[in-house]
């Protein structure tokens, strides 16, 4: 699975997620990636989110929409993604979700309960792109 979240110069937010799904999945199985509220969410003035992991759990938790509602309630984007990952971990155990998000001010955040998640971000005017893979990066 791959995903992107973006804020443009006019303050609009957008999110996108795309996947080949899980290997050996049952034909016709659909995971979280195409489902708004699960695999992605974008709402001006709130945030944009993209999710990855085991789709069945991300759908049941409506993970992306859950992040947006926390932010709408005043939680910082970095805390919101952590809280949702912790919630999913408490329900289904570790190893099944990763989130990236951006808020309406351009703050970016990520959280995950898997071994690794490749993630990167950049901003107009910034010299370099920031890349990370391991939790501590």
């Amino acid at each position, binding site marked *: 699975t791959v995903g992107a979240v973006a804020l443009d110069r006019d303050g609009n937010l957008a999110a996108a997620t795309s996947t080949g799904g899980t*290997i050996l999945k049952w034909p016709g199985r659909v995971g979280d990636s195409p489902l708004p509220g699960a695999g992605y969410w974008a709402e001006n003035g709130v945030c944009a989110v993209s999710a990855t992991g085991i789709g069945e759990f991300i759908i049941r938790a409506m993970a992306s929409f859950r992040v947006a509602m926390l932010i709408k309630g005043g939680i910082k984007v970095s805390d919101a993604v952590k809280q949702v990952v912790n919630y999913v971990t408490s329900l289904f155990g570790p190893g099944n979700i990763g989130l990236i998000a951006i808020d309406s001010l351009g703050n970016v955040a990520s959280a995950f309960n898997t071994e690794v998640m*490749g993630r990167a971000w950049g901003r107009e005017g910034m010299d370099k792109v920031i890349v990370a893979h391991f939790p501590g990066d």
Partner: protein
Amino acid sequence: VKATIAVHGGAGSLGYFVNEEHRQRYLNGLVNAVRAGLEAAKRGNALDMVVEAVTSMELDGSYDAGKGSVLNLYGEVEQDAGVMWGKDLSVGAVASVKHVINAIRLARLVMERTDHVLITGEGAEELARQFGLWVPSTELINESKINRYKSLLRNLRSRYEKNTDLARRLGLLG
């Protein structure tokens, strides 16, 4: 506000990577995706930014998406994708499409050229044909994917519980 974009290449385990070279290609692809998104910001909006960034990763082949998509139980590629525009909560999505590489662009077409939110299977394939996004399976399935599929099929029982019984009924487990 300065245009800003973040991307991910999927969460999971290091076992996904065939070798360190694959892992480095995967990380480099993330930088390329961010750059594609920031390039799109010069002419377009946040929707253009995320579609260009995800397209960059779908065409890369290092990710479980687009060209690099894994195989399902029948040994086919089936992709899902979704895109959302925060200004009016517009959504476009496709699911279980077999013959595309640029699934996110097909999802955007659902948003902008149909009256729907999510289109699956044959209908999505027909949209792909209409808009020049359809590709033959040969562009999505290669020998290394088939070898990995066969080796994992032998261990299916260790991966899925319920599907194992279904796969056995289908005679897929030998």
